[in-house]
């Protein structure tokens, strides 16, 4: 089964085509195709991860062209983690999207295409191939963001497209610089040849700068985050959750790969300025992201700014480059995906019941929707970093790594980030648990109940603020995310040990 990495990329493409063609036979069959495809995809992803964690790094040469010339797929512990994360989260969001929609076949075809892009970026060992997959995932993400019914979605999608494409083009230009300097595109080969060219060569420095800035746009590091709040707020709830959980995460993975596998730690040692700039970008992202999050009234926008802040932590870990920090970054990437995805789904669930996405609308939610309020509270506290949740473990490792590296300013910012995260989540929890529900709220809840009784499921709007039907799948997904956020925290230390050989290889 050496072909597993290639199959993982090919399977969702096939599923995407099938979902598209199936609409000719029967409309609204896309969901079933997507579930079937992603179920197989998840099994394959887990099988691959199991192999990688027991046997070590795995590589596959596409089309039989030997390694430095052809495209190589390389799967190490970190890529395997991403592949499993992508598979599990996208399958989970499907359970939510069953009733919440959007429900058209083209939507699911695009959904599967996004999974293709995400998986592709995770497994590729070739820099140009990474660009292509970044664009595939970008294209799918733009289309998905725009799949809401309101005009707002289309505007958000177009803005995301323009900013995202500039980011990807800068990445491509960086690939060009690296190619001109070395004549190769294979990552392993590049790391050797870039060292031969010399890390202080202007060409190599420019390549690094362009690649990293391009990826910063995709990760949404301040001040290149401007696409993110509009995109998350404009997209349908299931799409916000999927994109927020996976797209920036995989871009951050690409950042780790480019910085450490292609340019290596020696590059950062030879160019202290590059490292300092990354640290500054991370610190500014953490602080400003949180401050902007506090200022929001719309919950989806608040969560988007929270992502800007959380990904600052990951960038900080990449810049600090100690084993502990990188393990923390991997844990935080997984944890953040589960927590943020869960939070977006929870917001969608609450919006479906109460019709509001405003923070002010969460007054007394614990009395109206105890399950949803509890899940939001657990996920929010996990994000703040309350032990034993996964948010704590990730932040703890990154902070510890920063202390080990004696990078005191960033260590202070990381510890501070916990307080900052608390600043915007605490008021939400306060509103949910310590305030009385407004009078109008009870009316709406009753309206939803009658709507569900009369089979309101069939004519659910895919977007808009009005109350809609809530399915068991939606509730179960949100609950599962909350439980997972805590359970992953308990498993994180063991996972850190599993990841040890991968991290050592990244830093060597």
């Amino acid at each position, binding site marked *: 089964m050496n072909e597993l990495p290639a199959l993982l990329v090919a399977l969702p493409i096939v599923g995407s085509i099938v979902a598209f063609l199936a609409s000719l036979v029967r409309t609204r069959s896309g969901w079933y195709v997507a579930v079937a495809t992603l179920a197989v995809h998840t099994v394959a992803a887990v099988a691959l991860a199991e192999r990688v964690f027991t046997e070590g790094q795995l590589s596959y040469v596409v089309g039989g062209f030997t390694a430095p010339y052809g495209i190589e797929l390389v799967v190490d512990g970190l890529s395997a983690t991403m592949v499993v994360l992508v598979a599990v989260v996208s399958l989970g969001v499907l359970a939510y999207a069953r009733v919440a929609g959007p429900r058209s076949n083209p939507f699911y075809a695009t959904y599967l295409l996004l999974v293709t892009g995400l998986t592709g970026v995770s497994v590729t060992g070739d820099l140009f191939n990474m660009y292509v997959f970044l664009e595939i995932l970008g294209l799918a993400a733009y289309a998905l963001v*725009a799949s809401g019914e309101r*005009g707002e979605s289309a*505007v958000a*999608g*177009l803005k995301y*497209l*323009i900013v995202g494409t500039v980011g990807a083009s800068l990445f491509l230009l960086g690939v060009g610089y690296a*190619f001109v300097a070395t004549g190769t595109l294979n990552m392993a080969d590049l790391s050797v040849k870039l060292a031969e060219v010399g890390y202080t060569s202007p060409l190599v420095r420019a390549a690094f700068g362009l690649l990293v800035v391009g990826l910063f746009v995709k990760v949404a590091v301040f001040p290149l985050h401007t696409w993110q709040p509009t995109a998350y707020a404009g997209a349908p709830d299931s799409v916000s959750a999927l994109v927020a959980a996976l797209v920036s995460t995989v871009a951050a993975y690409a950042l780790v790969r480019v910085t450490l596998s292609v340019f290596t730690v020696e590059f950062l040692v030879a160019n202290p300025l590059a490292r300092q700039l990354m640290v500054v970008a991370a610190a500014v992202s953490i602080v400003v992201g949180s401050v902007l999050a506090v200022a929001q009234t719309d919950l989806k926008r608040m969560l988007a700014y929270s992502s800007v802040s959380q990904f600052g932590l990951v960038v900080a870990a990449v810049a600090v480059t100690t084993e502990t920090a990188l393990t923390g970054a991997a844990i935080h990437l997984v944890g953040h995906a589960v927590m943020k995805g869960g939070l977006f789904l929870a917001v969608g669930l609450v919006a479906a019941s109460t019709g509001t996405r405003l923070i002010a609308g969460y007054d007394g939610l614990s009395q109206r929707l105890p399950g949803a309020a509890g899940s939001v509270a657990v996920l929010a506290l996990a994000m703040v970093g309350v032990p034993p949740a996964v948010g704590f473990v990730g932040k703890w490792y990154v902070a510890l790594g920063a202390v080990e590296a004696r990078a005191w300013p960033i260590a202070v910012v990381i510890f501070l980030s916990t307080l900052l995260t608390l600043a915007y989540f605490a008021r939400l929890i306060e509103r949910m648990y310590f305030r009385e529900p407004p009078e109008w709220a009870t009316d709406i809840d009753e309206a939803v109940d009658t709507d569900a009784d009369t089979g309101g499921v069939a004519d659910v709007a895919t977007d808009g603020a009005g109350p809609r039907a809530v399915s068991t799948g939606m509730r179960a997904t949100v609950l599962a995310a909350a439980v997972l956020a805590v359970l992953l925290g308990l498993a994180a230390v063991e996972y850190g040990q599993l990841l040890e050989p991968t991290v050592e290889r990244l830093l060597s």
Partner: protein
Amino acid sequence: MSAVVPVGIIDLLATRSYYLVTFLLLGVGTYTMIASDNYVKKVIGLNLFQVGVFLFFIAAAYVDGANPPLLDEPGPYVSPLPHVLILTAIVVGVSLTAVALGLVVRIYAEYGTLDDDVVREVRADE
């Protein structure tokens, strides 16, 4: 110093003109994307920006006095790899333009305008 710089620039213009055009295109593209309020013009700016990157690759592949990389031509050859890469990138660029224009059509149908400022005003009123 003052005597060297002009000669350097002329030299640069003569031998590296493609790279200058590359960065000119990148600049014009970026400016159009930022300065224009019209969505279609923003997409045009985006295309210019991408073409700048394409040109960079193609210019980098060129070798003075070399032949196309064909078996019946004598060497040296120009590098074929960047051409193939850019062929892929052009396909990506075309798909992006298609999606972008699709969104522009939807925005026009929804708001009846292509002007970013007007759309923002309409949304603020909602």
